[in-house]
Protein backbone atom coordinates (compact mmCIF):
# COMPACT_ATOMS: atom_id res chain seq x y z
CA UNK A 1 0.00 0.00 0.00
CA UNK A 2 1.54 3.38 -1.02
CA UNK A 3 1.80 6.33 1.31
CA UNK A 4 -0.63 9.25 0.94
CA UNK A 5 0.53 11.43 3.84
CA UNK A 6 3.91 11.32 5.50
CA UNK A 7 4.63 13.99 8.10
CA UNK A 8 7.80 14.10 10.13
CA UNK A 9 9.21 16.49 12.72
CA UNK A 10 6.56 19.08 11.97
CA UNK A 11 6.62 22.19 14.14
CA UNK A 12 4.46 25.28 13.88
CA UNK A 13 4.54 28.41 16.00
CA UNK A 14 2.03 31.26 15.67
CA UNK A 15 3.01 34.91 15.26
CA UNK A 16 2.29 35.29 19.00
CA UNK A 17 4.95 32.69 19.77
CA UNK A 18 2.51 29.92 20.74
CA UNK A 19 3.79 26.49 19.76
CA UNK A 20 0.74 24.82 18.24
CA UNK A 21 2.40 21.81 16.65
CA UNK A 22 5.46 20.18 18.15
CA UNK A 23 7.30 17.34 16.53
CA UNK A 24 4.27 15.91 14.75
CA UNK A 25 4.73 12.56 13.00
CA UNK A 26 1.92 11.19 10.89
CA UNK A 27 1.64 8.38 8.41
CA UNK A 28 -1.52 7.70 6.40
CA UNK A 29 -1.62 5.13 3.62
CA UNK A 30 -3.51 5.55 0.39
CA UNK A 31 -7.08 4.29 0.75
CA UNK A 32 -7.17 4.77 4.54
CA UNK A 33 -9.92 6.43 6.57
CA UNK A 34 -8.55 8.16 9.64
CA UNK A 35 -10.22 10.31 12.30
CA UNK A 36 -8.18 13.00 14.00
CA UNK A 37 -9.73 14.03 17.27
CA UNK A 38 -8.83 16.65 19.80
CA UNK A 39 -10.21 19.43 21.93
CA UNK A 40 -11.13 22.77 20.39
CA UNK A 41 -8.21 24.98 19.35
CA UNK A 42 -5.51 22.33 19.64
CA UNK A 43 -4.35 22.83 16.05
CA UNK A 44 -6.49 20.43 14.01
CA UNK A 45 -7.47 23.15 11.52
CA UNK A 46 -3.84 24.22 11.24
CA UNK A 47 -2.67 20.67 10.60
CA UNK A 48 -5.30 20.15 7.91
CA UNK A 49 -4.40 23.52 6.34
CA UNK A 50 -0.75 22.40 6.21
CA UNK A 51 -1.65 19.02 4.73
CA UNK A 52 -3.96 20.67 2.20
CA UNK A 53 -1.15 22.96 0.97
CA UNK A 54 -3.19 25.98 2.09
CA UNK A 55 -0.70 27.05 4.76
CA UNK A 56 3.05 26.93 4.11
CA UNK A 57 4.94 24.83 6.70
CA UNK A 58 7.58 26.43 8.92
CA UNK A 59 9.63 23.47 10.01
CA UNK A 60 9.51 19.76 9.28
CA UNK A 61 8.57 17.71 6.28
CA UNK A 62 5.13 17.11 4.78
CA UNK A 63 4.85 14.68 1.91
CA UNK A 64 1.43 14.42 0.33
CA UNK A 65 1.02 11.97 -2.52
CA UNK A 66 4.83 11.85 -2.69
CA UNK A 67 5.25 15.60 -3.03
CA UNK A 68 7.06 17.77 -0.52
CA UNK A 69 4.54 20.51 0.24
CA UNK A 70 7.25 22.92 1.45
CA UNK A 71 9.12 22.80 -1.83
CA UNK A 72 6.25 23.16 -4.23
CA UNK A 73 6.17 26.05 -6.63
CA UNK A 74 3.01 28.18 -6.67
CA UNK A 75 1.67 26.35 -9.71
CA UNK A 76 2.45 22.90 -8.33
CA UNK A 77 0.85 23.82 -5.01
CA UNK A 78 -2.29 24.79 -6.92
CA UNK A 79 -2.21 21.53 -8.84
CA UNK A 80 -1.86 19.63 -5.56
CA UNK A 81 -4.76 21.58 -4.05
CA UNK A 82 -6.95 20.36 -6.87
CA UNK A 83 -6.12 16.80 -5.87
CA UNK A 84 -6.69 17.42 -2.17
CA UNK A 85 -10.25 18.27 -1.22
CA UNK A 86 -10.39 20.32 1.95
CA UNK A 87 -13.77 20.87 3.54
CA UNK A 88 -13.18 23.79 5.89
CA UNK A 89 -14.56 24.24 9.38
CA UNK A 90 -17.97 25.95 9.55
CA UNK A 91 -18.53 25.35 5.85
CA UNK A 92 -21.22 27.66 4.47
CA UNK A 93 -22.57 26.67 1.06
CA UNK A 94 -23.27 29.24 -1.60
CA UNK A 95 -26.80 30.65 -1.50
CA UNK A 96 -27.92 28.60 -4.49
CA UNK A 97 -29.34 25.16 -5.06
CA UNK A 98 -27.31 22.11 -4.06
CA UNK A 99 -26.54 21.25 -7.69
CA UNK A 100 -25.55 24.82 -8.54
CA UNK A 101 -23.04 24.78 -5.68
CA UNK A 102 -21.22 21.87 -7.27
CA UNK A 103 -21.61 23.29 -10.76
CA UNK A 104 -19.97 26.52 -9.65
CA UNK A 105 -16.85 24.80 -8.38
CA UNK A 106 -16.56 22.51 -11.38
CA UNK A 107 -17.06 25.27 -13.91
CA UNK A 108 -14.57 27.53 -12.11
CA UNK A 109 -12.10 24.65 -12.40
CA UNK A 110 -12.67 24.64 -16.15
CA UNK A 111 -15.35 22.00 -16.80
CA UNK A 112 -17.95 22.66 -19.45
CA UNK A 113 -21.59 22.84 -18.42
CA UNK A 114 -22.61 19.30 -19.46
CA UNK A 115 -19.52 17.75 -17.95
CA UNK A 116 -20.01 19.71 -14.72
CA UNK A 117 -23.66 18.74 -14.53
CA UNK A 118 -22.83 15.07 -14.93
CA UNK A 119 -20.14 15.16 -12.24
CA UNK A 120 -22.40 17.14 -9.91
CA UNK A 121 -25.17 14.58 -10.12
CA UNK A 122 -22.77 11.70 -9.48
CA UNK A 123 -21.40 13.44 -6.38
CA UNK A 124 -24.86 14.32 -5.08
CA UNK A 125 -25.98 10.74 -5.53
CA UNK A 126 -22.93 9.51 -3.66
CA UNK A 127 -23.74 11.57 -0.59
CA UNK A 128 -27.49 10.86 -0.79
CA UNK A 129 -28.61 14.34 -1.86
CA UNK A 130 -29.84 13.60 -5.36
CA UNK A 131 -33.43 14.35 -4.42
CA UNK A 132 -32.41 17.69 -2.94
CA UNK A 133 -30.41 18.77 -5.98
CA UNK A 134 -32.72 21.69 -6.73
CA UNK A 135 -33.24 22.62 -3.08
CA UNK A 136 -31.86 25.97 -1.97
CA UNK A 137 -29.07 25.45 0.54
CA UNK A 138 -30.84 27.70 3.03
CA UNK A 139 -33.54 25.03 3.25
CA UNK A 140 -31.11 22.17 3.95
CA UNK A 141 -30.60 20.78 7.46
CA UNK A 142 -27.17 20.88 9.12
CA UNK A 143 -26.53 17.24 8.20
CA UNK A 144 -27.59 17.85 4.61
CA UNK A 145 -25.32 20.88 4.40
CA UNK A 146 -22.44 18.72 5.60
CA UNK A 147 -23.29 16.12 2.97
CA UNK A 148 -23.36 18.90 0.39
CA UNK A 149 -19.94 20.06 1.58
CA UNK A 150 -18.62 16.53 1.17
CA UNK A 151 -20.17 16.32 -2.32
CA UNK A 152 -18.60 19.67 -3.17
CA UNK A 153 -15.24 18.36 -1.99
CA UNK A 154 -15.29 15.11 -3.93
CA UNK A 155 -17.03 16.22 -7.13
CA UNK A 156 -13.75 16.68 -9.01
CA UNK A 157 -12.40 13.25 -8.01
CA UNK A 158 -9.68 14.17 -5.50
CA UNK A 159 -7.11 11.73 -4.21
CA UNK A 160 -7.44 12.85 -0.62
CA UNK A 161 -10.34 14.28 1.37
CA UNK A 162 -9.59 16.40 4.42
CA UNK A 163 -12.59 17.39 6.55
CA UNK A 164 -12.31 19.88 9.37
CA UNK A 165 -14.64 19.77 12.38
CA UNK A 166 -16.68 16.96 10.91
CA UNK A 167 -19.55 16.81 13.36
CA UNK A 168 -19.89 20.54 13.98
CA UNK A 169 -23.54 21.42 14.52
CA UNK A 170 -24.77 17.85 14.14
CA UNK A 171 -27.08 16.11 16.59
CA UNK A 172 -25.65 12.92 18.11
CA UNK A 173 -27.98 10.72 16.06
CA UNK A 174 -26.80 12.40 12.84
CA UNK A 175 -23.15 11.55 13.40
CA UNK A 176 -23.11 7.80 12.78
CA UNK A 177 -24.76 8.10 9.32
CA UNK A 178 -22.00 10.56 8.39
CA UNK A 179 -19.40 8.04 9.57
CA UNK A 180 -21.14 5.43 7.41
CA UNK A 181 -21.04 7.78 4.43
CA UNK A 182 -17.30 8.31 4.87
CA UNK A 183 -16.79 4.55 5.07
CA UNK A 184 -18.70 4.07 1.81
CA UNK A 185 -16.57 6.67 0.06
CA UNK A 186 -13.45 5.14 1.55
CA UNK A 187 -14.47 1.74 0.20
CA UNK A 188 -14.37 3.31 -3.28
CA UNK A 189 -10.69 4.07 -2.72
CA UNK A 190 -10.79 7.64 -1.43
CA UNK A 191 -8.28 8.45 1.32
CA UNK A 192 -9.96 10.45 4.08
CA UNK A 193 -8.66 12.31 7.10
CA UNK A 194 -11.53 13.75 9.13
CA UNK A 195 -10.87 16.00 12.09
CA UNK A 196 -13.48 16.16 14.82
CA UNK A 197 -13.77 17.43 18.34
CA UNK A 198 -13.64 14.74 21.03
CA UNK A 199 -15.50 12.57 21.64
CA UNK A 200 -16.23 10.88 18.30
CA UNK A 201 -19.01 8.28 17.88
CA UNK A 202 -18.24 4.68 18.63
CA UNK A 203 -18.56 3.81 14.95
CA UNK A 204 -15.48 5.89 14.22
CA UNK A 205 -13.39 3.48 16.27
CA UNK A 206 -13.93 0.77 13.66
CA UNK A 207 -11.17 2.58 11.74
CA UNK A 208 -7.97 4.33 12.86
CA UNK A 209 -8.43 7.20 15.31
CA UNK A 210 -5.64 9.63 16.15
CA UNK A 211 -5.67 12.40 18.70
CA UNK A 212 -3.93 15.74 18.60
CA UNK A 213 -2.89 16.51 22.14
CA UNK A 214 -0.31 19.03 23.35
CA UNK A 215 0.70 19.71 19.76
CA UNK A 216 1.50 16.08 19.02
CA UNK A 217 -0.44 13.34 17.23
CA UNK A 218 -0.97 10.15 19.23
CA UNK A 219 -2.87 6.96 18.40
CA UNK A 220 -6.12 6.08 20.17
Amino acid at each position, binding site marked *: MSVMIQVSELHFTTDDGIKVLEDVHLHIDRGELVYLTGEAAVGK*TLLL*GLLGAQIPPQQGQILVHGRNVARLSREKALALR*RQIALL*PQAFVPLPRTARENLMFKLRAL*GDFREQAEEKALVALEMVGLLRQQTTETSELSAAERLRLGIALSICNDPLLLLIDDLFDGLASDEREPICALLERMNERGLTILAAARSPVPAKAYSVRVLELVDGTVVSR
Partner: protein
Amino acid sequence: MSQFLFVFRELLGSIRARSASLLAVASLFIFLCLASFAALLLVGGGSAVGDEVGLGVDEIVADISPRLSADAVNSLYREIQGHPDVASLAFRFAQEVSPGSTGGQFLIRTRGGDATAGVLTAVGSMNGITRVEAGTVVVSSEARFSLPGAARIALLAALVLSVVFSLLLARGGFRALLGTFQAEIRVMRVSGVSERTIVPPVVGLGTLMGLLAALLLIVGIYLAQYALGEGASSVSELANGGRVLVVVFADLILGVLLGTLVGLLGASLLSSREFSPLP
Protein backbone atom coordinates in the same frame (compact mmCIF):
# COMPACT_ATOMS: atom_id res chain seq x y z
CA MET B 1 -11.15 31.87 -21.61
CA SER B 2 -14.29 29.94 -20.70
CA GLN B 3 -13.22 30.05 -17.02
CA PHE B 4 -12.71 33.81 -17.25
CA LEU B 5 -16.11 34.31 -18.82
CA PHE B 6 -17.77 32.03 -16.30
CA VAL B 7 -16.27 33.76 -13.27
CA PHE B 8 -16.90 37.17 -14.87
CA ARG B 9 -20.57 36.33 -15.39
CA GLU B 10 -20.87 35.04 -11.83
CA LEU B 11 -19.21 38.23 -10.58
CA LEU B 12 -21.69 40.36 -12.52
CA GLY B 13 -24.49 38.23 -11.08
CA SER B 14 -23.34 39.16 -7.58
CA ILE B 15 -23.89 42.87 -8.18
CA ARG B 16 -26.49 44.22 -5.77
CA ALA B 17 -28.06 47.67 -5.39
CA ARG B 18 -25.30 49.09 -3.21
CA SER B 19 -22.37 47.88 -5.30
CA ALA B 20 -24.21 48.77 -8.52
CA SER B 21 -24.85 52.34 -7.43
CA LEU B 22 -21.27 52.86 -6.18
CA LEU B 23 -19.75 51.41 -9.32
CA ALA B 24 -22.14 53.42 -11.52
CA VAL B 25 -21.15 56.66 -9.78
CA ALA B 26 -17.48 55.66 -10.07
CA SER B 27 -18.04 55.16 -13.82
CA LEU B 28 -19.67 58.58 -13.96
CA PHE B 29 -16.55 60.11 -12.44
CA ILE B 30 -14.41 58.27 -14.98
CA PHE B 31 -16.68 59.81 -17.62
CA LEU B 32 -16.19 63.28 -16.10
CA CYS B 33 -12.44 62.75 -16.02
CA LEU B 34 -12.44 61.77 -19.68
CA ALA B 35 -14.74 64.67 -20.55
CA SER B 36 -12.38 67.13 -18.82
CA PHE B 37 -9.48 65.57 -20.66
CA ALA B 38 -11.31 65.84 -24.00
CA ALA B 39 -12.32 69.44 -23.29
CA LEU B 40 -8.72 70.35 -22.51
CA LEU B 41 -7.53 68.78 -25.74
CA LEU B 42 -10.31 70.11 -27.93
CA VAL B 43 -10.85 73.62 -26.66
CA GLY B 44 -8.51 74.25 -23.78
CA GLY B 45 -5.46 75.00 -25.87
CA GLY B 46 -7.04 77.82 -27.85
CA SER B 47 -5.27 81.09 -28.45
CA ALA B 48 -6.23 84.54 -29.54
CA VAL B 49 -7.22 85.22 -33.12
CA GLY B 50 -4.20 84.60 -35.25
CA ASP B 51 -3.17 85.44 -38.75
CA GLU B 52 -4.27 82.14 -40.13
CA VAL B 53 -7.68 82.48 -38.62
CA GLY B 54 -10.63 83.21 -40.92
CA LEU B 55 -12.37 86.56 -40.61
CA GLY B 56 -15.43 87.05 -38.49
CA VAL B 57 -18.57 88.73 -39.79
CA ASP B 58 -17.50 91.97 -38.13
CA GLU B 59 -14.03 91.98 -39.64
CA ILE B 60 -12.61 93.53 -42.78
CA VAL B 61 -9.15 93.31 -44.24
CA ALA B 62 -8.01 96.14 -46.51
CA ASP B 63 -4.80 95.83 -48.56
CA ILE B 64 -2.80 99.07 -48.91
CA SER B 65 -0.92 99.91 -52.08
CA PRO B 66 2.87 99.56 -51.58
CA ARG B 67 3.35 102.82 -53.44
CA LEU B 68 1.79 104.91 -50.69
CA SER B 69 4.03 107.05 -48.55
CA ALA B 70 4.00 106.79 -44.77
CA ASP B 71 2.05 110.03 -44.52
CA ALA B 72 -0.56 108.74 -46.95
CA VAL B 73 -0.94 105.54 -44.90
CA ASN B 74 -1.33 107.64 -41.73
CA SER B 75 -3.95 109.70 -43.47
CA LEU B 76 -5.86 106.61 -44.54
CA TYR B 77 -5.61 105.23 -41.00
CA ARG B 78 -7.17 108.38 -39.54
CA GLU B 79 -9.86 108.42 -42.22
CA ILE B 80 -10.93 104.84 -41.52
CA GLN B 81 -10.69 105.33 -37.79
CA GLY B 82 -13.01 108.28 -38.15
CA HIS B 83 -15.75 106.14 -39.65
CA PRO B 84 -18.61 105.87 -37.12
CA ASP B 85 -19.07 102.13 -37.61
CA VAL B 86 -15.43 101.20 -37.04
CA ALA B 87 -14.85 99.80 -33.59
CA SER B 88 -11.14 99.13 -33.86
CA LEU B 89 -8.38 99.35 -36.37
CA ALA B 90 -4.97 97.73 -36.63
CA PHE B 91 -2.17 98.02 -39.12
CA ARG B 92 0.18 95.24 -40.06
CA PHE B 93 2.91 94.95 -42.63
CA ALA B 94 2.22 92.74 -45.62
CA GLN B 95 5.34 90.71 -44.76
CA GLU B 96 3.62 89.56 -41.60
CA VAL B 97 0.95 87.96 -43.72
CA SER B 98 2.99 86.74 -46.63
CA PRO B 99 6.79 86.84 -46.78
CA GLY B 100 8.08 88.73 -49.80
CA SER B 101 5.01 90.95 -50.05
CA THR B 102 5.20 94.69 -49.76
CA GLY B 103 2.82 97.28 -48.48
CA GLY B 104 0.50 96.71 -45.58
CA GLN B 105 -2.97 95.77 -44.38
CA PHE B 106 -5.60 97.34 -42.21
CA LEU B 107 -7.50 94.93 -40.03
CA ILE B 108 -10.80 96.61 -39.28
CA ARG B 109 -13.35 95.48 -36.73
CA THR B 110 -16.77 97.03 -37.21
CA ARG B 111 -19.40 97.64 -34.55
CA GLY B 112 -21.31 94.58 -35.71
CA GLY B 113 -22.06 92.35 -38.66
CA ASP B 114 -24.77 94.75 -39.91
CA ALA B 115 -22.29 97.60 -40.18
CA THR B 116 -19.75 95.60 -42.14
CA ALA B 117 -21.23 96.20 -45.59
CA GLY B 118 -21.22 100.00 -45.19
CA VAL B 119 -17.68 100.11 -43.92
CA LEU B 120 -16.60 97.73 -46.70
CA THR B 121 -18.00 100.07 -49.36
CA ALA B 122 -16.52 103.16 -47.76
CA VAL B 123 -13.04 101.68 -47.32
CA GLY B 124 -13.08 100.05 -50.76
CA SER B 125 -13.65 103.43 -52.41
CA MET B 126 -10.69 105.08 -50.68
CA ASN B 127 -7.61 105.93 -52.73
CA GLY B 128 -4.65 103.70 -51.97
CA ILE B 129 -6.75 100.68 -50.98
CA THR B 130 -6.14 97.93 -53.53
CA ARG B 131 -8.43 95.21 -52.13
CA VAL B 132 -10.98 94.82 -49.38
CA GLU B 133 -12.39 91.62 -47.99
CA ALA B 134 -15.19 91.26 -45.53
CA GLY B 135 -15.39 88.43 -43.06
CA THR B 136 -17.56 85.42 -43.53
CA VAL B 137 -19.21 83.35 -40.83
CA VAL B 138 -16.15 81.15 -40.71
CA VAL B 139 -14.33 81.60 -37.47
CA SER B 140 -11.60 79.20 -36.57
CA SER B 141 -12.23 76.67 -33.87
CA GLU B 142 -9.30 78.02 -31.93
CA ALA B 143 -10.94 81.40 -31.83
CA ARG B 144 -14.44 80.17 -31.20
CA PHE B 145 -13.65 77.63 -28.52
CA SER B 146 -10.59 79.02 -26.83
CA LEU B 147 -10.89 78.95 -23.07
CA PRO B 148 -9.52 81.46 -20.61
CA GLY B 149 -6.71 80.31 -18.36
CA ALA B 150 -8.96 80.01 -15.31
CA ALA B 151 -11.29 77.66 -17.16
CA ARG B 152 -8.35 75.51 -18.20
CA ILE B 153 -7.18 75.30 -14.61
CA ALA B 154 -10.72 74.41 -13.54
CA LEU B 155 -10.81 71.63 -16.14
CA LEU B 156 -7.48 70.32 -14.94
CA ALA B 157 -8.72 70.36 -11.35
CA ALA B 158 -11.93 68.60 -12.42
CA LEU B 159 -9.83 65.95 -14.15
CA VAL B 160 -7.70 65.26 -11.08
CA LEU B 161 -10.68 65.30 -8.70
CA SER B 162 -12.62 62.96 -10.97
CA VAL B 163 -9.77 60.45 -10.89
CA VAL B 164 -9.59 60.63 -7.09
CA PHE B 165 -13.37 60.30 -6.63
CA SER B 166 -13.65 57.49 -9.16
CA LEU B 167 -10.94 55.54 -7.32
CA LEU B 168 -12.54 56.12 -3.91
CA LEU B 169 -16.03 55.18 -5.09
CA ALA B 170 -14.77 52.19 -7.06
CA ARG B 171 -12.98 50.91 -3.97
CA GLY B 172 -16.24 51.09 -2.03
CA GLY B 173 -18.15 49.52 -4.91
CA PHE B 174 -15.71 46.65 -5.29
CA ARG B 175 -15.68 46.10 -1.52
CA ALA B 176 -19.47 45.76 -1.57
CA LEU B 177 -19.40 43.56 -4.67
CA LEU B 178 -16.67 41.25 -3.41
CA GLY B 179 -18.52 41.05 -0.09
CA THR B 180 -21.43 39.38 -1.86
CA PHE B 181 -19.00 37.24 -3.89
CA GLN B 182 -16.94 36.27 -0.83
CA ALA B 183 -18.26 32.70 -0.49
CA GLU B 184 -17.58 32.00 -4.16
CA ILE B 185 -14.01 33.28 -3.83
CA ARG B 186 -13.46 31.05 -0.82
CA VAL B 187 -14.80 28.03 -2.66
CA MET B 188 -12.56 28.75 -5.63
CA ARG B 189 -9.49 29.24 -3.49
CA VAL B 190 -9.99 26.14 -1.39
CA SER B 191 -10.59 24.16 -4.58
CA GLY B 192 -7.24 25.16 -6.07
CA VAL B 193 -8.63 27.55 -8.69
CA SER B 194 -5.73 29.69 -9.85
CA GLU B 195 -5.52 33.37 -8.95
CA ARG B 196 -5.21 33.90 -12.70
CA THR B 197 -8.81 32.80 -12.90
CA ILE B 198 -10.04 34.75 -9.86
CA VAL B 199 -8.32 38.12 -10.32
CA PRO B 200 -8.76 38.96 -14.04
CA PRO B 201 -12.59 39.13 -13.93
CA VAL B 202 -12.36 41.75 -11.17
CA VAL B 203 -9.82 43.78 -13.15
CA GLY B 204 -11.91 43.18 -16.27
CA LEU B 205 -14.95 44.71 -14.61
CA GLY B 206 -12.96 47.89 -13.95
CA THR B 207 -11.71 47.92 -17.53
CA LEU B 208 -15.28 47.52 -18.74
CA MET B 209 -16.35 50.50 -16.60
CA GLY B 210 -13.62 52.64 -18.16
CA LEU B 211 -14.43 51.43 -21.65
CA LEU B 212 -18.13 52.17 -21.26
CA ALA B 213 -17.38 55.65 -19.91
CA ALA B 214 -15.08 56.31 -22.87
CA LEU B 215 -17.62 55.03 -25.39
CA LEU B 216 -20.33 57.17 -23.81
CA LEU B 217 -18.10 60.22 -24.11
CA ILE B 218 -17.25 59.43 -27.73
CA VAL B 219 -20.95 59.23 -28.53
CA GLY B 220 -21.37 62.53 -26.66
CA ILE B 221 -18.61 64.22 -28.66
CA TYR B 222 -20.10 63.15 -31.98
CA LEU B 223 -23.61 64.10 -30.86
CA ALA B 224 -22.31 67.53 -29.84
CA GLN B 225 -20.64 67.87 -33.19
CA TYR B 226 -23.89 66.93 -34.89
CA ALA B 227 -25.99 69.21 -32.67
CA LEU B 228 -23.77 72.22 -33.29
CA GLY B 229 -24.21 71.45 -36.98
CA GLU B 230 -23.76 74.08 -39.63
CA GLY B 231 -23.61 76.95 -37.20
CA ALA B 232 -20.44 75.54 -35.85
CA SER B 233 -18.58 74.51 -38.91
CA SER B 234 -15.52 74.97 -36.78
CA VAL B 235 -16.21 71.59 -35.25
CA SER B 236 -16.12 70.19 -38.75
CA GLU B 237 -12.81 71.88 -39.13
CA LEU B 238 -11.63 70.05 -36.07
CA ALA B 239 -12.80 66.80 -37.56
CA ASN B 240 -11.24 67.64 -40.87
CA GLY B 241 -8.00 68.25 -39.13
CA GLY B 242 -8.30 64.83 -37.52
CA ARG B 243 -8.32 66.42 -34.10
CA VAL B 244 -11.57 64.88 -32.91
CA LEU B 245 -10.34 61.48 -33.99
CA VAL B 246 -7.14 61.95 -32.03
CA VAL B 247 -9.09 63.04 -28.95
CA VAL B 248 -11.51 60.14 -29.32
CA PHE B 249 -8.63 57.69 -29.58
CA ALA B 250 -6.81 59.26 -26.64
CA ASP B 251 -10.01 59.14 -24.58
CA LEU B 252 -10.51 55.48 -25.39
CA ILE B 253 -6.98 54.63 -24.29
CA LEU B 254 -7.27 56.77 -21.15
CA GLY B 255 -10.67 55.26 -20.33
CA VAL B 256 -9.35 51.72 -20.59
CA LEU B 257 -6.24 52.58 -18.56
CA LEU B 258 -8.21 54.35 -15.85
CA GLY B 259 -10.76 51.52 -15.75
CA THR B 260 -7.99 48.95 -15.46
CA LEU B 261 -6.47 50.96 -12.62
CA VAL B 262 -9.86 50.94 -10.89
CA GLY B 263 -10.10 47.19 -11.48
CA LEU B 264 -6.63 46.60 -10.06
CA LEU B 265 -7.64 48.59 -7.00
CA GLY B 266 -10.67 46.29 -6.64
CA ALA B 267 -8.53 43.20 -7.15
CA SER B 268 -6.14 44.35 -4.42
CA LEU B 269 -9.00 43.78 -1.95
CA LEU B 270 -8.83 40.06 -2.73
CA SER B 271 -5.70 39.71 -0.64
CA SER B 272 -7.71 40.50 2.47
CA ARG B 273 -8.05 37.74 5.09
CA GLU B 274 -11.81 37.70 4.70
CA PHE B 275 -11.35 35.94 1.37
CA SER B 276 -9.08 33.28 2.82
CA PRO B 277 -10.63 29.82 2.59
CA LEU B 278 -9.54 28.89 6.10
CA PRO B 279 -10.89 30.55 9.24
